């Protein structure tokens, strides 16, 4: 099989990795923000519940979470009740990454000096005005580096979906391996390198954009 054919086939399966990445990022970021509000809530049961959720998600292997999301509905409700493989993978990733993101958001929000909020209050701003016009940008500036770390990790973690037989790029390469071709597996690294190269550049640009002020 020619290099071009292998490249095309790997690229086709890498689209799944990209889809998983995009869906997870788009949904785990807002969910993480909501979870962070929950864990900071003064309503104790809510903060306990969210902190317990974060504990579970951060303390068990992501691979295991994939398995649970994919197989548990079938075990409970009987065969045929599992979600599609790709959906299960996306769901597990979203739940897992939202937990990590929520902790980063919590740290970021609590890191903005309380005086900023009070300054907004004495100027007659509403809570939401203070959040959107005062806190948010300072918060974003603080969390771009740690969120960037997670995003780069997520790109690589998408390949874990092969554990529940999602035909992403590593799974594809392993199939080549079964046919005696080992080099495609090594070659997949190039795809991740290029993708994360773009991500790294984008993150650098965001950081530079926020460089005009100091917190």
């Amino acid at each position, binding site marked *: 099989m020619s290099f071009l054919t292998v490249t095309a086939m790997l690229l086709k399966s890498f689209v799944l990795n990209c889809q998983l990445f995009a869906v997870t990022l788009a949904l785990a970021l807002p969910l993480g923000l909501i979870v962070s509000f929950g864990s900071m809530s003064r309503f104790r049961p809510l903060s306990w519940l969210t902190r317990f959720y974060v504990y579970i998600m951060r303390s068990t292997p992501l691979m295991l979470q994939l398995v649970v999301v994919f197989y548990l509905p079938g075990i409970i409700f009987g065969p045929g009740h599992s979600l599609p493989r790709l959906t299960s993978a996306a769901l597990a990733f979203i739940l897992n990454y939202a937990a990590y993101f929520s902790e980063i958001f919590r740290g970021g929000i609590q890191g903005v*000096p309380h*005086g*900023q909020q*009070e*300054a*907004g*209050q*004495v*100027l*007659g*701003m*509403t809570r939401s*005005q203070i959040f959107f*016009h*005062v806190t948010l*940008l*300072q918060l974003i*500036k603080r969390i771009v580096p740690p969120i960037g770390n997670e995003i780069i990790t997520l790109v690589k973690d998408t390949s874990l979906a092969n554990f529940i037989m999602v035909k992403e790029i590593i799974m594809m390469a392993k199939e080549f391996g079964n046919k005696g071709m080992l080099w495609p597996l090594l070659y997949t690294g190039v795809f991740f390198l290029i993708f994360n190269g773009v991500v790294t550049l984008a993150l650098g640009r965001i950081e530079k954009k926020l460089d*005009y*002020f*100091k*917190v």
Partner: protein
Amino acid sequence: MAILTATGITKTFGRTEVLKGISFSLEEGQALAIIGSSGSGKTTLLRCLNFLETPGQGVISVRDEVLFDAADPATQREREVRKKRLHFGLVFQAFHLFPQYTALQNITLAKDLLAREQPGYKARRKAIQAENEAQARELLAQMGLAGRADHYPHQLSGGQQQRVAIARALALQPDVLCFDEPTSALDPELTGEVLRVIRGLAEQKTTMVIVTHEMAFARDVADQVIFMDNGVIVEQGDARQVINHPAQERTRQFLSRYAQS
């Protein structure tokens, strides 16, 4: 007639009684200095006036309108508290400028946001913002910072930042402007420029409450002075009289420590 009246203000944190029934009033156009050692409750009193703390007991009125009455929960609704805060301005010890905005934007932000609540804002948005900007530039000039409008806080010295913070508070035209140790976070050579600005405001008859450790400044600029100790007002009266000839032994002790240093 008094513009500001506080009656029987108490505040307790946990088991510590920080304010034990503070009463005072302030005439329009006068400056009141609050002095006293750290932990005497000065800052807490100022924060109560600005609704950053809720007093346990007491009443706060501005121009005969009761803004806060501990016995009347109707005066403590969050929506209304926000509006009531606008009777007061507060300049913090640590400035608390918004780092992502220029000096000019720091001053106009709150006013632009408040304007959104006015009827017909959408149609007049541009004109209102231009008005606010013109006012902010005027205030900056008054603070001696005309050339710093487009600087970000981290590009300004502490004294300049504090003057921007004063302009920011003035922009909303509060009835009473409060200062919480406005020079305590500044290098000694930068305190002068901030004190000069406050002195200028006193000359323009701005009603002010100033918590300060600068005794000479309090004596020369304030009309009235309150000496607080351990949550109570030990002595109050004419600024010169109290600082030059304190009647209470406790005030004398406190002031003599400043005279030595």
